C-alpha cells in the first residue's frame, strides 16, 4: 500500500487524535514524501519528537489544491535514517534540524552542517535537558572555491546596519559571487525547548517574539493551534480583528521593505518617505492595541482589544491617508530608470528553482508560484473574506518588490472592507482546555510567507512537542541561490528583497 495514500488528512487549523496518524514503515514515509511532492504538495513540516522507545519523525505536507494537510509519522528510526534531500531538496534543512535536535543522522545528506549550533535536545529521565557542549556558532566547514584570484569574503555576525546577526561567506572571483553560504543560529534562544510542557503563562509571549516583526502572524498561528486542540474557534469579531492586524502588519513591513530597497540603490526620496510611512502603519496597530507590533492583541478565543465606531472611522481615515502617501512614494520607483536598472535582472530565482527549494510567501510569488495560505488554507476571517493573490514571474529583485506593492494595494482594500463590515458579537470567548493526545497544524500567511505551527499534546493536554516553522526557514536558501553570478555589491539589495527573519529561523 502506498504511504502517500495512508497519510491522515485534515484542514489546516484543525486537530486530530494522535491515534489517527498512520505509523508508516520507512519505505512508506519515503513514498508519501516523494509521491506527495511530485503531485505538487509541499513539505511544511518534517521534524522529530521524543517518544518512549525513541524519537519518531513527523511529516506534514500541504495540499494547496485540496486545501488540506496530510500528516504521517514513523516508527523510531533509531540513530539513522536515509536522507531524502538528494531526491527532494526542500527537506534539506528539515533533515539537518532533525540531526541537530535529536541526534538522528540523515545518512547520505549532502550538506549535513549545524542549523542553529544548538545543544542537542536530549531526553533524560523523562525531562528534556540541554547538554553543555555545543559547537561554536559560525565555525563550520564552509564550501570553498579554489583557484587563481578566487577569494573569500566573510560578513557578520555583526553587520553594518541595524539588523540581526548572521554569518555570510562569499566565494568570489573579483566582484562576481560564485557561491554564498549562510550560517545562522546566533539568535537561538531555546523557543521550542521552552514551549514543551506548555501552554503556560509564558507560551504566548514566546510566540509573540519568535519573530517580533511578525507578532500577529505567529501569535495567530499559535492561537489557532490552541483553539483547534480545544475544539473551539475564535469569535467572528475576534477573527476579523486578527485579520485586520495581520494585514496591517503586512502593510507596515512591505512599505518599510520597499523603502529599504530604495535606500539600497541610493534612491533617497522613496527611502525617506517609506521610512516614515512604515511607522504610520505601525501606529494604526498601536491605535488598536497600544503596541506598534501588536503585542497583546491576539489571544486564544479571539482578540483582546475592540474597536468602537469612532475608532473604526479614524482608522479608515488614517489608513487612506497613509495609503495615498505610500502610493505616491512607491510609484516613484517604477518610473525611475536608475532604480529599475538595479532592480531588474538582479538576484533571479527561476520558477523551477523556487519550486524545488519549496519557497513560500512573496519570494515564491515573485518567481511565479501561485501559493498563498490566505487562499489555499484559509482560516479565521479569510474563510469569509477573500484577498486576491499577487503574482509576478521574473523572480528578480523587481518582482519581489512589485509583488509587495500589489499586496499593499490588496491589503488596504481588504482592511477597508473588514472595517466597514466588522462582525458583531463578542470579541473573545473562553477556549476549552487543550485536548490530550492530539495533533494540530496551523498555516497562516504572514507578511514573509507561510507560518506553520504543529503541536503534539500528551495525554494530559500539555505540549509534548511544539514545532514552529517561520517562512524564512524555507527561504534562506533562496538568498544564497539568488547571489550566484551576481556582484557582491548587490548582496544588500538581494538580501533586502527577501528580508528574511534571523530570529524566526534560529528560534
Amino acid at each position, binding site marked *: 500500500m502506498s504511504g502517500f495514500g495512508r497519510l491522515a488528512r485534515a484542514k489546516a487549523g484543525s486537530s486530530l487524535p494522535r491515534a489517527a496518524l498512520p505509523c508508516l514503515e520507512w519505505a512508506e514515509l519515503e513514498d508519501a514524501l516523494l509521491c506527495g511532492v511530485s503531485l505538487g504538495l509541499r513539505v511544511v513540516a518534517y521534524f522529530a519528537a521524543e517518544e518512549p522507545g525513541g524519537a519518531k519523525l513527523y511529516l506534514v505536507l500541504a495540499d494547496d489544491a485540496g486545501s488540506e494537510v496530510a500528516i504521517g509519522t514513523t516508527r523510531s528510526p533509531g540513530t539513522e535514517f536515509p536522507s531524502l534531500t538528494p531526491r527532494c531538496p526542500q527537506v534539506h534543512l528539515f533533515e539537518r534540524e532533525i540531526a541537530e535536535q535529536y541526534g538522528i543522522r540523515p545518512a547520505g545528506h549532502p550538506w549535513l552542517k549545524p542549523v542553529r549550533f544548538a545543544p542537542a535536545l536530549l531526553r533524560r529521565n523523562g525531562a528534556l535537558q540541554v547538554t553543555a557542549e555545543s559547537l561554536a556558532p559560525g565555525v563550520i566547514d564552509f564550501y570553498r572555491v579554489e583557484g587563481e584570484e578566487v577569494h573569500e569574503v566573510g560578513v557578520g555576525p555583526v553587520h553594518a546596519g541595524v539588523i540581526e*546577526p548572521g554569518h555570510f561567506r562569499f566565494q568570489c572571483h573579483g566582484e562576481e559571487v560564485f557561491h554564498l553560504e549562510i550560517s545562522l*543560529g546566533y539568535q537561538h534562544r*531555546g523557543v521550542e525547548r521552552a514551549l514543551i510542557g506548555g501552554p503556560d503563562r509564558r507560551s504566548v509571549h514566546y510566540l509573540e*517574539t519568535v*519573530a517580533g516583526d511578525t507578532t500577529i502572524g505567529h501569535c495567530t498561528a499559535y492561537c489557532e493551534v490552541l483553539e483547534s486542540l480545544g475544539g473551539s474557534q475564535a469569535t467572528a469579531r475576534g477573527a476579523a480583528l486578527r485579520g485586520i492586524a495581520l494585514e496591517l502588519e503586512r502593510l507596515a513591513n512591505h512599505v518599510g521593505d520597499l523603502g529599504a530597497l530604495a535606500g539600497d540603490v541610493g534612491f533617497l526620496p522613496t527611502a525617506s518617505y517609506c*521610512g516614515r510611512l512604515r511607522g504610520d502603519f505601525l501606529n494604526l496597530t498601536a491605535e488598536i492595541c497600544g*503596541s506598534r507590533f501588536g503585542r497583546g492583541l491576539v489571544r486564544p478565543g479571539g482578540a483582546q482589544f475592540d474597536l468602537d465606531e469612532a475608532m473604526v472611522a479614524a482608522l479608515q481615515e488614517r489608513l487612506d491617508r497613509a495609503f495615498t502617501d505610500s502610493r505616491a512614494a512607491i510609484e516613484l520607483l517604477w518610473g525611475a530608470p536608475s532604480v529599475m536598472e538595479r532592480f531588474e535582472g538582479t538576484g533571479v530565482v527561476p520558477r523551477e528553482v523556487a519550486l524545488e527549494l519549496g519557497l513560500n510567501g512573496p519570494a515564491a510569488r515573485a518567481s511565479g508560484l501561485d501559493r498563498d495560505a490566505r487562499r489555499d488554507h484559509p482560516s479565521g476571517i479569510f474563510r469569509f473574506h477573500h484577498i486576491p493573490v499577487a503574482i509576478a514571474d521574473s523572480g528578480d529583485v523587481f518582482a519581489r518588490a512589485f509583488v509587495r506593492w500589489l499586496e499593499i494595494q490588496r491589503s488596504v482594500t481588504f482592511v477597508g472592507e473588514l472595517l466597514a463590515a466588522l462582525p458583531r458579537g463578542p470579541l473573545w470567548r473562553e477556549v476549552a482546555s487543550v485536548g490530550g493526545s492530539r495533533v494540530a497544524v496551523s498555516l497562516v500567511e504572514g507578511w514573509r510567507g507561510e507560518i506553520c505551527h504543529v503541536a503534539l499534546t500528551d495525554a494530559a493536554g500539555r505540549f509534548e512537542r511544539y514545532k514552529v516553522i517561520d517562512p524564512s526557514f524555507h527561504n534562506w536558501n533562496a538568498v544564497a541561490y539568488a547571489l550566484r553570478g551576481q556582484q557582491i555589491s548587490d548582496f544588500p539589495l538581494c538580501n533586502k528583497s527577501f528580508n528574511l527573519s534571523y530570529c524566526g529561523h534560529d528560534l
Partner: protein
Amino acid sequence: MFDLLRTRARQGHRTISFPHGEPPELPGRFRGHPIIDQSRCAEGCTQCADACPTGAISSLPVLEVDLGKCLFCAECATACPTGALSYGGDYRLAAGTREDLRVTQEQGVRLARALDAKSRRLFGRSLKFRQVSAGGCNGCESEVNVLSTVVWDLGRFGVQIVASPRHADGLIVTGPVTENMRLALQQTYEAVAPPKLVVAVGACAVAGGPYIDHPEVHNGADAVVPVDLYVPGCPPHPLTILDGLLRLLGRIEASKTER
C-alpha cells in the same frame, strides 16, 4: 522629475519638534509607566505576581514592579481583582541602573541622569553608536532603526548609528544576549575605543525578556558588558528610547525630569 518634486511637496515636513516642543501624541491604549494603588490590594493577594510571565512583580509585602523584566503585557492588570495596578500613558522609562527600574506606589522610575560634565563634553554634540542585536526579535531593532527616519531624526542631536564599532563611541544592545552572540558582543565592545557607553534597549537586553533564565541566554547585556542606560519595554516606543538618550546627554531640562 516633476513627479519627484510634486511628491516631495506632498510628503511635507515630518520631523517632530520634541524635545523642544510637545512629544508626539501616543495612542490611547499605549501601556507606559505603571500606576499602582496599593490601598486597593487585598490582604495577602498575589494574583498579579502569579499572572506575570517573567516574574517582574512581587506583591508582598509591598507591590513592586521591576520594569526591567516587565513586558508591558498588562496580564497583571487583567488578573488584579481590585484595579490596584494599571498601565498609564507616561512614556518616560529609561534609567541609569537596574535598581532604578523597580517601581512601587511611592517611587516611580528614577529616570536616567545626565552624564558628568566631562563625558558630556566628549559625547554631548557627537555620539556614534554601533548596534548589536544579540538574540533580539527584530522588534527593538526596528524601533532603534526608526529613530533614524525623518520623523525622529536622531541626527539632529548629533547621535548616529554607524557601521563599525571602530567608528563608534558606544553600543546599543538589543536581545537577551544569546550564548551564540556572547563572544561577538564582547568583541564588538572591545573594538570600541574608550571611553564608551552602552545602552540596553528592550526587556530582553535589560533582563532577558520572555527568555529570562533560559540556559541559551545570559539575561541581558549587563551580563557581558557594563551598561549605562537601561530602556525598558517590549519593544520600547521610539519616544522612550529617544527620551532616554536625550536624558543621558543632558538635553532634556531638569523640569521635565520630575515625575
